[in-house]
Each structure stands twice: as structure tokens, then as C-alpha cells.
């Protein structure tokens, strides 16, 4: 009875608050990350050599450094240069840039899988290079990148828990505080875990719906 009361009066409101913060971290990071990933992916394949090197460098850097370290740099490092970010802003920045680096890899792979003939046909109709990429290549590549990109978004939901390391108190942060006060680690972290599972499950359902919506007869089978 005491447990139930504690859960009801302390745990539930705190975790709900944390859940809200997590959602507000994840949604913009996922969208911005995806946008960065598409742009950088395109630059890595179609950019001139200077742009290509810069984009490769970005992807290498942000995939190669642990995300916690990146967050520390944004939050604790930037004030050194007189740039002060709130914990929330630093987290979204860190997540977006890291996620974008991963997405760019999926997009790059998808772009490279588009058959040369598609480009020849577009060029022969008088498409400019940018027009061809936007109207012909990307609509196909995005469909092919979707499974990988979805995977990255699921990851993002889970690594959003790192935000509490730079004092952005989201779901995991709230859980940590509750658990330290009450020593009910098992109950609280099981609940927190279930919340993440709920988020990833909903995300997986949404992603499957999107994939289904964008499905084109025979398009997947034409991978050669």
C-alpha cells in the first residue's frame, strides 16, 4: 500500500515530467538529424572534392567520438568560448549532430545504390544536377535509406538518456533522482525501462507505417 502510494504521488508525476522532456529532446533531434543526414549524405556523394572531404570529416568525427564526450564539449566546453547553452539546447545540438552523421551514412549508401541509368535518363531530359538529385535520385534513395534511418531513430530514443549527464533532467534523470532518494532502484528503473520500450515501440510502428505508405510496387525488388 505504501509502495503504491509512493508510486502514485512521487514516481508517476516525476516520470511523466521526465517523459515529456525526453519527447521534447527526441522529436526535434530526430527531425534535424534526419535533415542533416540527407544534406550531408548528398554532399558526400555529389559534392565537389572540397565539400566531400568536409562532409566526410564531419561524419567521421561525430561517429567516432563517444556521444557523452560530445555532450560534455557542447555543455562544459563551449562556455570557454563564451557560448552558453542550456542543458536542453546542448543536448538537442549534440543529438542532432551525432544522429545526422549516422543518417548521412545510410543516405550515402542508398544514393550509391541508385542505378546509373536513372541519372542518364534524367540528364537526357535536360534536368540540372540539383534538379536530378531532388526529383529523381532522392525520392528513390530516401526509400532505400528508410530502414537504416529508422534504426538510427530508435537508437536516438535510447541515447537521449545521456542528456541527464549534462543536467538536462529527462526520463532517466528523473528516475535517477527518485531512486537515489528512495532506494527503490528496481521498481523505478523497471518503470523507466518500460517507458523507453513504449517509445521505441511506438516509433517502430510509426516508421513501419511511413515505410508502408512510401512503398512502390516492385521498387524494392529492383535492387540489384
Amino acid at each position, binding site marked *: 500500500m505504501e509502495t503504491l502510494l509512493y508510486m502514485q504521488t512521487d514516481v508517476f508525476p516525476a516520470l511523466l515530467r521526465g517523459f515529456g522532456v525526453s519527447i521534447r529532446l527526441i522529436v526535434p533531434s530526430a527531425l534535424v538529424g534526419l535533415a542533416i543526414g540527407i544534406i550531408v549524405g548528398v554532399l558526400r556523394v555529389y559534392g565537389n572534392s572540397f565539400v566531400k572531404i568536409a562532409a566526410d570529416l564531419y561524419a567521421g568525427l561525430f561517429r567516432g567520438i563517444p556521444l557523452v564526450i560530445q555532450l560534455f564539449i557542447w555543455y562544459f566546453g563551449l562556455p570557454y568560448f563564451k557560448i552558453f547553452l542550456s542543458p536542453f539546447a546542448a543536448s538537442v545540438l549534440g543529438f542532432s549532430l551525432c544522429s545526422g552523421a549516422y543518417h548521412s551514412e545510410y543516405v550515402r549508401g542508398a544514393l550509391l545504390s541508385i*542505378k546509373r*541509368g*536513372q541519372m*542518364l*535518363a*534524367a*540528364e*537526357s*531530359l*535536360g*534536368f*540540372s544536377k540539383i*534538379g536530378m538529385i531532388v*526529383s*529523381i535520385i532522392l*525520392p*528513390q534513395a530516401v*526509400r532505400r535509406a528508410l530502414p537504416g534511418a529508422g534504426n538510427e531513430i530508435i537508437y536516438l530514443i535510447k541515447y537521449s538518456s545521456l542528456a541527464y549527464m549534462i543536467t538536462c533532467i529527462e526520463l532517466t534523470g528523473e528516475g535517477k533522482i527518485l531512486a537515489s532518494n528512495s532506494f527503490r532502484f528496481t521498481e523505478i528503473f523497471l518503470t523507466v525501462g518500460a517507458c523507453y520500450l513504449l517509445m521505441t515501440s511506438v516509433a517502430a510502428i510509426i516508421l513501419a507505417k511511413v515505410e508502408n505508405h512510401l512503398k*512502390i*510496387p*516492385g*521498387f524494392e*525488388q*529492383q535492387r540489384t
Partner: protein
Amino acid sequence: MTSPILRIENLSKKYGQREVLKGVSLEVEKGDLKILIGPSGAGKSTFLHCINFLVKPDEGHVWLDNEEIHPARKRELYAYRQKVGMIFQDFNLFDHLTAFENVRIGLVKVKGIGKDAAGARAAQELERVGLKEHMQKYPSQLSGGQKQRVSIARALAMDPEVMLLDEPTSALDPELIGEVHAVIRDLGKSGMTMIMATHQIGFASSLASEIIFMEDGRILEQGTPSKIFNDPDNSRTREFCSKITDLYGER
């Protein structure tokens, strides 16, 4: 004599050490149907790709309507390519678009025509190639012959002055070749200027204004169909034509 609609001078292309085109020149009058024949690897396909700069020639010049094309000037190049339709051996329909959208997209995105007007034009072109009832199908739901007809409609929608056809029927089942030939024949009758590479000698000789025999990156001989098929000057031409006539018959 009228000036040629398309003039090609001295096109050359090397891949590494291999010379694929060794200075090919050609003049095409309005309404001409030039047929390129020759063994595989003769450079027919490279020649066609070089004409609209899908493959950048190392040397050579191209004039359309007496205006030289400078492929480095992107805007000019894109405008030129709209006037030169290209049909590929393996169709190259846009896989993510329906037949209708395949034909419409160039009008909308390249020519900047409104979606409704472009759609009406696309439907008209698809009807012209006999595919009205297949408009909403995706490439994977069409037969090879239907795909090639969509690609012809797609090229025609851009109102080209010249069409380049790179072995348009060689990836097709024999029974599907006829429907594509019928479309090309109608095009010829309507006065379209065309350069076509093909192995279909019978079809070629019944339509062509001139047959061009290519081998090893060069034009070895060119002349009227009856001249090339019955009385060629070059022994290689004779040898090739007799072989290919045996294969594709119907002459």
C-alpha cells in the same frame, strides 16, 4: 541544299588507352532517319551518348540548328538536351514513378509547365504510344515493350527536334519488338528526325534514309539501305550485313 539540323564533327572518346570513338562526323537533315549498324563494341552507343554529352567526348563539336553546343555552359547544355530525345536500350524509366508521372516529370520540373497542363500532355503522349489504360502502372508492372513505349512518350513530351535511339529493341522479347517498332515507324512518318542504333536490319532497311556502318570507332561506310545491304563497297560491310541478315532475317 538546306543546312543540316544536326551536325556532328570529329567526335572522339578514349577510355583510358582504349579509343572507342576515332573522330566520327555526321550530318543529319530534318526528317532523316539514320540507322547505325555494326558489331558490338563498334562505338555506336558511345557515339549516341556523346551526341547529347551524356558521355563527354574528348574532342569534337556538335551543332544543332547551326548553333554550336558548348557542354561546359550548363544552361545551354540542359536546353540542348531537351531538344534531343534519348531512348535507351534498357528503358531507364524512373522506378519510383508511374508511367504517367514518368512522362509528366520532365514537363513539370524541367520545362516548368503547370501540373495540369503537363498532365494533359503526358496523357496525350501515352495515348499516342497506345498506353492510355496503363498510365497509372509502375515500371515493374509493365512489360518490356510497354516500358520502352513509355520512355518514347517521355522523350516525345519534351518536343524534341531530334531523337537518338540506342538499340531500343535489343533488350526485348522477340514478340514485344513489333509494338515498339510500330511506334518508331509512326514517329518516322510524322517526320521526326532520328538516329537509331539497331541490329534489326529488316526494320532498318524499310525505314532508313541512310544506313551507317560503324566498326572499331569509325564510320566505315554509309549509304542508302539498298546500297549498303545489296552492294556495299567495303568487304567488312558486306560480311557484317550477310551475317546479320542470316540472324535477323525477314528481308
